[in-house]
């Protein structure tokens, strides 16, 4: 497995360079995982992307570097300490770098001579391919998809110059596949939504959720989806509810701050029993927090957002494949139980790219509630044994449907009857009983008879998985982990089983207060022995988790 960092100021082309390089590495047969570290600014500052690639599957990033591609001095200063002893630094001669393995190419001059300063990144791509023993076989194809035709030749020329400027340093490792997908978490989520039959998406731009709206908008006409940029998040969620009430599969997406504004309408979805999918792509809070960075601190909030009591479901996304399949499931669960389903993702997963096995659409089951035909009086909120009342889509039959945010009777008419209030509350909450039978248990990773059990949820899946592997290799103790996707309601079967053997339980979370550990304690009485918490806006890596555990064990 190799790991390189490409860094520079915003506007210097780090993003484009990485996007192309990733695709080329994937074409060479490598598994790829890349994650972005972005500043919230359009120009300047320091941005970098970590690209990890190799013949074996890779589920997360690493901070231990085989190489640094530096577009500015800052990149060198900030990251050289993480370089392996024989790692290289690739840069322009204008940067002052003294190290063992510096590869300097006059990228800026060559690019100028070629007639476009922007192709410096392509020169570095050529150099990297050579350093790692790759061929130039795929460059034309890959570049053609990313750059405009008039810039194609100059870029290919730049790649070749870069390629010829250096000597190979690392062996090519034969990869195992050629036809996997390479996509970001938000792209996988969006694709899941389309596959689920999404018809209406409304949102107000907010990082890191905006790329969902962008992806969907790009497919709008062809896929027959209306994507509407709302005037605010309150409108966005109410629109999604309106479209869903009439029968269109609808979703809204935002990040924590926008979710705050959606809270009243979340309750509306619960009270009026209208299916709704809301994606909360978390970023650090409170309020504007760190707009372009990552955190898992909305858990407490989304499981209890909105006043009063109503059933809901919260699904945390673990990785790219999960983002696809669980988004489809979210739509199914929302429709089946006529409840709001919240998808929790975060900037790390949203913006990172990974190679994944092509999504298998034959695996997908699309739950569709049978539409009732009513000629007589239709009772929108009919009392049933499982709390789910048959749904009628307005305008499709002679019957008519009403929805109400006030407490209502079976017809959907306002009532203040104490008796009906209790019956209606019970009816709504009854849905949870059936839903709980359908929960997905957390994934278990590692040694079955583990003494140390990590507990995690969502996007820390990859890092935790890597940590378990490292620890089981490096330590005589046995390690395992349970990583949750369904977090609310909380499935507890595996947890109570696995806990019996474990001597230590460590929750790993990207927040400051251990929200998931609190939830587990509340629901099961199980108390974690210790916590590994990271809340500096950067995702924890597998090595960092392992290091912390070994350090504590040494004490």
């Amino acid at each position: 497995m190799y790991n390189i960092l490409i860094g520079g100021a915003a506007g210097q082309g780090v993003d484009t360079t990485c996007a192309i390089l990733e695709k080329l590495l994937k074409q060479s047969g490598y598994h790829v995982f890349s994650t972005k570290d972005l500043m919230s600014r359009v120009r300047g500052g320091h941005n970098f992307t970590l690209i990890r690639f190799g013949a074996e599957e890779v589920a997360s990033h690493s901070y231990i570097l085989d190489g640094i591609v530096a577009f500015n001095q800052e990149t060198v200063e900030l990251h050289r300490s993480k370089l392996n002893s024989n790692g290289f630094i690739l840069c322009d001669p204008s940067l002052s770098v003294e190290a063992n393995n510096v590869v300097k190419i006059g990228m800026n001059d060559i690019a100028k001579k070629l007639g476009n300063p922007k192709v410096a990144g392509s020169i570095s791509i050529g150099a990297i391919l050579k350093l790692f023993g790759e061929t130039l076989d795929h460059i034309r194809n890959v570049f053609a998809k990313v750059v405009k035709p008039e810039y194609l030749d100059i870029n290919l020329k730049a790649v070749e110059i870069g390629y010829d400027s250096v000597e190979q340093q690392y062996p090519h490792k034969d990869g195992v596949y050629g036809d996997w997908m390479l996509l970001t978490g938000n792209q996988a989520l969006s694709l899941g939504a389309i596959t689920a039959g999404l018809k209406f998406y409304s949102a107000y731009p907010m990082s890191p959720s905006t790329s969902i709206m962008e992806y969907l908008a790009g497919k709008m006409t062809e896929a027959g989806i209306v994507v509407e940029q709302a005037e605010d998040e309150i409108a966005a969620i109410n629109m999604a509810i309106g479209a869903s009430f009439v029968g269109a599969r609808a979703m809204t997406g935002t990040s924590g701050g926008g979710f705050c504004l959606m809270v009243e309408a979340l309750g509306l979805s619960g009270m009026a029993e209208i299916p709704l999918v809301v994606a909360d792509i978390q970023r650090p809070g409170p309020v504007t927090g760190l707009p372009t960075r990552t955190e898992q601190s909305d858990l407490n909030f989304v499981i209890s957002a909105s006043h009063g009591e109503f059933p809901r479901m919260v699904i945390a996304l673990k990785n790219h494949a999960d983002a696809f399949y669980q988004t489809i499931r979210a739509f199914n669960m929302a429709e089946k139980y006529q409840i709001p389903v919240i998808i929790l993702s975060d900037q790390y997963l949203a913006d990172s790219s990974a190679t994944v096995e092509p999504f298998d659409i034959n695996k997908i089951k699309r739950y569709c509630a049978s539409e009732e035909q009513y000629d007589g009086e239709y009772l929108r909120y009919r009392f049933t044994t499982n709390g789910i009342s048959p749904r009628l889509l307005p305008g499709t039959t002679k019957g008519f449907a009403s929805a109400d945010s006030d407490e209502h009777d079976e017809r959907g008419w306002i009532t203040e009857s104490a008796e009906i209030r209790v019956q209606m509350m019970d009816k709504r909450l009854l849905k949870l009983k059936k839903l709980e039978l359908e929960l997905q248990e957390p994934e278990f990773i590692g040694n079955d008879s583990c003494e140390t059990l990590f507990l995690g949820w969502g996007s820390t899946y990859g890092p935790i998985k890597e940590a378990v592997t490292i620890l089981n290799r490096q330590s005589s103790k046995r390690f395992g982990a349970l990583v949750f996707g369904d977090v609310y309601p909380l499935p507890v079967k595996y947890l109570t089983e696995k806990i019996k053997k474990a001597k230590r339980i460590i929750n790993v979370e990207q927040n400051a207060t251990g929200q998931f550990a609190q939830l587990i304690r509340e629901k099961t009485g199980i108390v974690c022995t210790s916590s590994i918490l990271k809340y500096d806006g950067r995702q924890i890596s597998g090595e960092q988790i392992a290091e912390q555990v070994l350090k504590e064990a040494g004490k």
Partner: protein
Amino acid sequence: MSVSSKEFCTSETAWCPGCGNFSILKCLKQSLEELGKDPHEVLLVAGIGQAAKTPQYLSANSFCGLHGRALPVAIAAKIANQNLTVIVNSGEGDSYGEGGNHFIHNIRRNVDITHFVHDNQIYALTKGQASPTSAEGHVTGVQTEGSMNTPLNPILMAIAAGAGFVARAFSGEPEQLVSIMKQAILYKGYSLVDILQPCISFNKINTFSYYQKRIYKLKSDYNPYDKVEAIKKALEFGNQIPMGVIYQAEKRTFHEKNSVLSSGVPLLDQHQDVSLIEKYIREFV
């Protein structure tokens, strides 16, 4: 209740006897019947408030959502199924106060829905606080020294924001109200009717006779397509209050502009081709 007949049934209400809302409800029922609508083709949307209870009292599809949020629900319902006749009935607090942002921006969207604002110049459901259209100096339990804020002029605002159908009516003039309601429902695009509606319980200033003394009907030769004239009429709100269709223009609707909806096939009925998903997956390979 027979729902197969074309008749819209009204049920017992929780309004005060003598409230202007009764007449609006009756006129709405009459308008829908005269237009030959079937109850199941109609979706009545409202927020929260006294006026917002209207959908509860008429047999049709209905959605009573959140205070201020009727418009986003209504436009999205229309986007999802354009065969529905979507009508919003809500108070001026709901429509211009809590929902002010949606009011402005949905004019820009121009989705083909009809918006009837029951404008009683007071917050009724919450028992008598100033509303966005309450007159300056109007004393209430909260505005103890009289409302200090300039009242909003919804007609002027709507014209300025680019609405294509803007009218004013009075609940006490049912004949004209029905005629305006029908025109508003038939208008292709967003239509606003600000309906002056006396609240007998909480607004002792803008009473039935207060309005009756001031209103006058626009002359038959009034040209609603003249925007400058319309703005002049919109500015009249005092001793003289003009009633009728104040401004009208032809504008492309959201559905006409949107490539997914312009075919006329309701979004709901558009079927997705599975091969598309396979294609999208391949785009990442």
